[in-house]
């Protein structure tokens, strides 16, 4: 048994060693000609940022933007644990505040997002407004109050004097969308921009949703590999060209 496993093990070690060599030599060859900018971005920016990054790369030849998308709070905790990011784009100011001591300069607001009600196609439960989400016979899902979209949902409901009765408090807006798109829930509270990029979903607008807007800050990190490039990226995001792309995706100006 042991004897038969040995050649396999030896082969595996050899492959690992070879892979290690290849990776390091590729890195060495790539570094002089091109530059990489690592952007940690809130999940709600997923599609729109691809378009913005393409424009930024076109204006900065030799620069490749690598974006990592996740919940803002996940990203903030990764940055606190030392993840090698150059720029952080958060879906709310609270998460940016949690890494305030690792920033290079003040955060710049570049977009806002508001909430809407997502319903499955055809709106089977005939949801017409926020008040319907207080009705236990309507199966509704929201984000948990601990995450930005849930905090916004709670504030908005409080402003309207509505007590939400969710069947589930999800970890992030993608999970809310998933439950609604699958028809498992009759309604969910998500961002306006999420409905624009999801399929199998319709939006039921909330009157006065703009009273609670999530503001998206961007900041270069103090440990950025190239501080000038990181600062240029943040400035580009707040510029007219990026703002136009953001507006097309449903984001409002800050």
């Amino acid at each position, binding site marked *: 048994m*042991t004897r038969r496993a*040995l050649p396999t*093990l030896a082969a595996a070690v050899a492959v690992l060693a070879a892979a290690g060599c290849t990776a390091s030599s590729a890195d060495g060859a790539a570094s002089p000609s091109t530059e990489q900018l690592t952007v940690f971005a809130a999940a709600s920016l997923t599609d729109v940022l691809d378009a913005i990054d393409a424009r930024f790369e076109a204006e900065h030849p030799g620069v490749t933007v690598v974006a990592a998308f996740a919940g803002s*709070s996940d990203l903030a*905790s990764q940055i606190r644990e030392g993840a090698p990011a150059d720029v952080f784009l958060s879906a709310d100011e609270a998460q940016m505040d949690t890494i305030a001591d690792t920033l290079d300069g003040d955060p710049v607001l570049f977009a806002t997002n508001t909430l809407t009600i997502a319903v499955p196609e055809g709106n089977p439960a005939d949801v017409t407004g926020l008040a319907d989400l207080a009705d236990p016979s309507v*199966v509704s*899902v929201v984000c*948990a109050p*601990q*995450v930005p979209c849930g905090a916004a949902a709670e504030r908005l409901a409080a402003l309207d004097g509505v007590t939400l009765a*969710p*069947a*589930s*408090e*999800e*970890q992030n807006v993608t*999970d809310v969308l*998933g*439950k609604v798109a*699958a*028809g*498992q*829930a009759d309604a969910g509270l998500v961002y306006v921009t999420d409905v624009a990029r999801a399929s199998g979903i319709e939006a039921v607008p909330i009157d006065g949703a703009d009273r609670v807007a999530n503001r998206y800050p961007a900041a270069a990190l103090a440990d950025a590999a190239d501080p000038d490039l990181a600062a240029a990226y943040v400035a580009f995001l707040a510029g007219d060209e990026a703002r136009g792309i953001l507006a097309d995706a449903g984001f409002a100006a800050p």
Partner: protein
Amino acid sequence: MTGPRWLAPLAALGGLLVALPLVGLIARVPWSRFVALVTSEDALTALGLSLRTSLAATVLTVTLGVPLGFALRALTGALRGVVRALVLAPLVLPPVVGGLALLYAFGRRGLLGETVGGSLAFTTAAVVIAQTFVAMPFMVVSVESALAATTGRREAIAATLGASPTRVLARVTLPTLAPALATGAVLAFARALGEFGATLTFAGSLAGVTRTAPLDIYLLRETDPEAAAALSLVLVAVAIGVVALAYRPVRSAS
């Protein structure tokens, strides 16, 4: 049998890979707040729900998994291989895939239809189904391999002495299988206790209803990472205890 000496450093590396994350977790536990954190109302609600659902899932696993193990043993040739692979699939499926599959079977738009799906959506029963789905393979494998090790001679003798098939099962076969059943049940319980992805995807997350300890830990990270580490340690302790328990009789028997 210890193998050649050069295995030792690799074994040490392997041991480190497993042990270091646990050490890291322990290092993050705020010991001064530990008792308060793991006995907070939230934590006790989540741990209590985890305990109840995991026990229910274990009972279901025994009730359904043991007969499934017998049925698998009764099959012959290629068919047994195919069925075994199907039954064991939940063991290796990515949890989120398992959750989606459950949704498509038992969801409101699933195969069983709105009546069944609607009564399960976002309920504790949905959590138990998800846990049973992922835990069942442990029981089936235990029973099948234990049956493979029996000759069937004692069962044949009991039958010639006039015992009915049910009596043979209860008085001869099951007592022989007892150690395997115990191992299978304990491992199934541990797997149910640790279940996360399928629950999140299929059942949702609401305190006291569907938010089991792993889901609570995931959410706690947002607001209090130290509390998440404390609650994690409780699950780690239970998991290690359970696995030690499950493998003790097997080792002494061989």
